[in-house]
C-alpha cells in the first residue's frame, strides 16, 4: 500500500508546489502568506458581532445580485398577470409586478428575496451590537478613533441601503414610508420643497423615485459601503485586534490563535453558520409579504403600519412630538414638529460618532489602548452609553405605540404620554442607575482583590472570636480585577501665561463628572496593608492555604 500511495503524494505535493511557485513568481503571494498566515487573532464571544455583520453583508451581496437579474425598477403601470391569484388583473407598477414574479413564479425567488431581507435586518442589527460592544469596552480609544467613525458611517450607509431596498417593491407599505420621507424632506427650511421635487422628479409619488432608489441601492451605496468596509478591515489589521484584560495579555501583545489554520477554520465555519441561520429564517418565516399589502396607492393604508426595525427610532421620534409645533414666521412655514425629531435623530448619530474625541479631550490620554475595558471600570462612559441606549429604545418603542396600545389594552394617548416622559427622564435614570451599579461592581472587585473570596468556613479564634475565612485569589484571577486604567479629575492650574482659560474650566468640570467617583485599582501595598490589619485572619488564611481541610481540627 505504502509503495503505491507514496509517489501519489509526491506528485500531489509537487503539483501544489508548482502551482504555488507559478503564482508567487507573478504575485509575491508568499510575502502575504508570511505576513498574515500566522497573524494572531484574540478570542472572545463579543468579537464575533462584527463578523456577523460582515458575513451577512456578503450574503446580501450574493443574493442581491441574483435579484437584480429578475427585478425591473420601472414605475410604468401594468396589469399583474402572474401566479398570485388574488392580485390578478390589478393595476400596479412593473417594479411591484416583477417583485411578485420573483416571489411566486421564479423557483427559489421567494427564498432568495427572503434571505436578502433577513440578512439585511441581521446586518444592521449586528452592526448596532458590534458598535455597542466597541463603545462599552472603550475600544474606540487611540489608535482606533478613526475606525470608529468609519464604522459609524458604515452603519448609516447600512440603514440607507435598508431603506432604499425596502422601497423598491413599490408596495403599499413602502409607498407610505416614502410618503413620510417626502413629508419630512418638505419640512426642511429653505430647501425642503426643492429637495423633495428633485428627489421624486416632481410631485409625490411621480414615476422616477423607484429607479433612482435602485441606482442608489445597487450601485452608489454599495460601492461606498464596500470601499469603507475594506478600509475598516485594513485598520483592524493595522491596529491588530483588541483583547480583554487577562493574565499574559498586555498592551504590547496579542494572545490568540493564528489565522492559519485555527482562526480560518473557526471564522470560515462561522460564515457558513451565519449564512445557514439566515437561510433557515428565510425558509420558515415570511418577511415583507408585499402581496398582502398590495400595490401603492396614496389613499388606502393599513392600521398598525411599521417600518423595518432599524427605521423605527426615526418613526418613533416623529410620533412623540406634541401637537401644534409649527409656526408661520417671516411669511414662511417653520415645521418644528419635523425639525425637532430631525435634530434628535442627528444627535443620536453625531454624538456617539464624536464621543471618542470628547473623551480624549477630557483625559488627554495619548497612550495607545489595546486592552478592552470591562464596562464597569469606566462607570461614567457606561452610564452615558446606557442613557443613549435608553433614549434610542424609547424612540424605537414609540414606533410601535399603536400596537403597544392595542396589545396591552391601553389608551393610545397614555402610551404616547408615557413614552414622551420616558424619552426625557429615562436616559437620566438609566445613567444614574448604571453608573451606581458599575461603581458597586468595582467596589466588589476591589473587596475581592483585597480580601479574597468568602470561603463559607467559620472559624473560632483562640480569643473566642468567630471569623469567616477568606480565600485569597490566585495571581491570575486577581490580575483581571486590578489591571484597569485609572483616571483622576483634572486639577485646575494656570497655564504658562498664568491664566485659567474657560476651556480648562470646562475640561476640569467634565473630568470631575467622569472621574470624581473613582475607585482605584488595588495595589500590592494595599494588599499587604490589609493583611496587616487583619493579622489573625491572615495568619489563618496562610495556614489554610498550606493545609487544606485543617479547619476541621479547630472544632
Amino acid at each position: 500500500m505504502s509503495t503505491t500511495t507514496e509517489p501519489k503524494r509526491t506528485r500531489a505535493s509537487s503539483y501544489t508546489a508548482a502551482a504555488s511557485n507559478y503564482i508567487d513568481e507573478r504575485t509575491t503571494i508568499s510575502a502575504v502568506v508570511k505576513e498574515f498566515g500566522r497573524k494572531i487573532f484574540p478570542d472572545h464571544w463579543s468579537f464575533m458581532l462584527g463578523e456577523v455583520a460582515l458575513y451577512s453583508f456578503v450574503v446580501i451581496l450574493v443574493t442581491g445580485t441574483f435579484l437584480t437579474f429578475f427585478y425591473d425598477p420601472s414605475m410604468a403601470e401594468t396589469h399583474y398577470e402572474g401566479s398570485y391569484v388574488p392580485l390578478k388583473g390589478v393595476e400596479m407598477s412593473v417594479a411591484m409586478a416583477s417583485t411578485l414574479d420573483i416571489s411566486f413564479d421564479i423557483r427559489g425567488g421567494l427564498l432568495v428575496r427572503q434571505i436578502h431581507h433577513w440578512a439585511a435586518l441581521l446586518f444592521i442589527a449586528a452592526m448596532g451590537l458590534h458598535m455597542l460592544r466597541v463603545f462599552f469596552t472603550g475600544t474606540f480609544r487611540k489608535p482606533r478613533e478613526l475606525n470608529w467613525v468609519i464604522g459609524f458611517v458604515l452603519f448609516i450607509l447600512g440603514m440607507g441601503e435598508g431603506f432604499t431596498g425596502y422601497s423598491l417593491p413599490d408596495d403599499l407599505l413602502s409607498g407610505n414610508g416614502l410618503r413620510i420621507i417626502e413629508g419630512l424632506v418638505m419640512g426642511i427650511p429653505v430647501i425642503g420643497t426643492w429637495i423633495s421635487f428633485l428627489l421624486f422628479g416632481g410631485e409625490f409619488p411621480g414615476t422616477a423615485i423607484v429607479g433612482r432608489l435602485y441606482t442608489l441601492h445597487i450601485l452608489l451605496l454599495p460601492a461606498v459601503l464596500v470601499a469603507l468596509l475594506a478600509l475598516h478591515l485594513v485598520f483592524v489589521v493595522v491596529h491588530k485586534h483588541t483583547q480583554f484584560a487577562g493574565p499574559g495579555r498586555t498592551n504590547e501583545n496579542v494572545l490568540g490563535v493564528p489565522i492559519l489554520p485555527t482562526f480560518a477554520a473557526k471564522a470560515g465555519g462561522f460564515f457558513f453558520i451565519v449564512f445557514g441561520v439566515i437561510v433557515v429564517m428565510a425558509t420558515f418565516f415570511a418577511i415583507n409579504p408585499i402581496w398582502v399589502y398590495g400595490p401603492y396607492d396614496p389613499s388606502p393604508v393599513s392600521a398598525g403600519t411599521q417600518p423595518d426595525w432599524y427605521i423605527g427610532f426615526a418613526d418613533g421620534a416623529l410620533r412623540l412630538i406634541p401637537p401644534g409645533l409649527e409656526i408661520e414666521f417671516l411669511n414662511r412655514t417653520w415645521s418644528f414638529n419635523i425639525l425637532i425629531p430631525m435634530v434628535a435623530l442627528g444627535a443620536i448619530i453625531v454624538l456617539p460618532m464624536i464621543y471618542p474625541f470628547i473623551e480624549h479631550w477630557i483625559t488627554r490620554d495619548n497612550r495607545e489602548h489595546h486592552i478592552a475595558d470591562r464596562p464597569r471600570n469606566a462607570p461614567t462612559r457606561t452610564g452615558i452609553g446606557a442613557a443613549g441606549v435608553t433614549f434610542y429604545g424609547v424612540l424605537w418603542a414609540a414606533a410601535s405605540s399603536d400596537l403597544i396600545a392595542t396589545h396591552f389594552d391601553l389608551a393610545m394617548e397614555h402610551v404616547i404620554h408615557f413614552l414622551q416622559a420616558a424619552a426625557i427622564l429615562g436616559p437620566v435614570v438609566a445613567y444614574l442607575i448604571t453608573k451606581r451599579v458599575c461603581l458597586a461592581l468595582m467596589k466588589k472587585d476591589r473587596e475581592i482583590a483585597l480580601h479574597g473570596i468568602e470561603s463559607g468556613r467559620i472559624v473560632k479564634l483562640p480569643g473566642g472570636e468567630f471569623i469567616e475565612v477568606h480565600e485569597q485569589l490566585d495571581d491570575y484571577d486577581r490580575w483581571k480585577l486590578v489591571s484597569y486604567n485609572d483616571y483622576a479629575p483634572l486639577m485646575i492650574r494656570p497655564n504658562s501665561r498664568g491664566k485659567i482659560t474657560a476651556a480648562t474650566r470646562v475640561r476640569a468640570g467634565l473630568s470631575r463628572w467622569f472621574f470624581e467617583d473613582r475607585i482605584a485599582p488595588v495595589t500590592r501595598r494595599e494588599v499587604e496593608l490589609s493583611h496587616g490589619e487583619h493579622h489573625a485572619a491572615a495568619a489563618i488564611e496562610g495556614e489554610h492555604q498550606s493545609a487544606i481541610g485543617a479547619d476541621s481540627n479547630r472544632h
Partner: protein
Amino acid sequence: MADDHGARDVVSAGHSARSVAVPVSASTETQASPGLGVVAPDRFENPGIPPHQPRVTDLDPKKEKRAERTVYILFYLSLAGSVFAIGAYFGFPIEENNIASTRMNNLMLGLGMSLALLAIGVAAVHWGKALMPEEEMIDQRHPVTGSPATRARAVEIFDQANKESGFGRRSLLRNSLIGALVAFPLPAIVLFRDLYPGNQEDPVSALSRTMWKEGVRLTRDPSGTPIRASEVTLGSAFHVIPEGLEESEHYLEEKAKAAVLLMRLRPDELNEIEERKTWSYDGIVAYSKICTHVGCPVALYEQITHHLLCPCHQSQFDVTNHCEVIFGPAARPLPQLPIAVDDEGYLIAQSDFTEPVGPSFWERASVNDN
C-alpha cells in the same frame, strides 16, 4: 504620576516557548502622555499566561477519533443537503396559480440549503475547536505610529516636493490651483438641477392646487361612481376621489393630493365657524384625507367620537371642530373641501381647497397670503 506604563505590563511567566516572546520594555508607549491617567508605582505585575489546560481530544485518542468522525460526517451531510436542494428545485416546481407549490418549493429548497450551509459551518468550527491546536500564541504589537526615522523621511519628502514644485513659495500658482479644484466639481452638481426638469410647473404652485374645482363631482374611491347626498347616511364615511381622476394623466400624483373623506354628522354636532357654514351640506362634510403632518392617509374614522386618526403617527382630528388637531404630531387641521349638491342630487365641490393640502412646506405660509 511617573509613567512606567511600558514597563509594568511585562509578562513574567515562563511557560514553554511562549515566554520568549514576552519581555517588552521601552517603546514609544513610554513617551505617550497618560493625560489624566493615574499609574500607581506599585501596581500588580502581569502574572503571565496561566498553564494550558489540555482538551479531551488532546488526551484521549478515542475522543480525537470521534471528533474527526463527527466532522467528516457533517461535511458529507452538507454535501447531501446541496444535492437535496438541487433535487428540490426540480422535484418541487412552482405550478401555475398554485400558492401551495410556491410554499413547498421555498420550504424544500430552503431546507436543503440550510443543511448544506449549517453542516459545513458546524463541521469547520468543530474541526477548529476540537482538533486544531488551541493553545494561545503571542504576537507582539508595534506602535501604530511610524518610527522616528520613517517620520523624518516623510517630512523630508514633503519638504523636498514643496521645494521642487514651489507649492509654498509660488502662492499665486497654489491659490489658483485651489480655486480651480474647488470650482471644477460645481458643474457636476448643477447638472442635477434637472432631476426635476426645468420646464415643469413651479413646485409651490403644483403643491397649491388639486383636481378639485367648482362643479366636480365627489366619487367613490376606487370605483369612481358619483355619490348622491341621500346615499350618505348619518354616521357613514366615504373615501372620495374627484370625478375624472381615472382618466388623469398623473393619476397617483393627483390622487395623493385630492383624496377626501366624506362624513355625515347630525348638523347640530358640527361647530361650524361663520364663514364655513356654507361649506357643508346638511351635516355632510368633506375633508382632505392627506395628513398635515407628513402626508399619510388619515384613513381611520371613529364614528362615535367623530375623530379621524392617522395610522402612521397617530395624529387625531376632531371632525366636529373643522378637523382641528386634538392629539399627535400634526400641527394644522385637515383642509376642508367646500361641497354642495347639483341638480341631480349628486355631491359636487364648490371650489378647490382654499389652502394647500398635505404636509407643510417652507413656502406654504406665503401661499396662504396670496
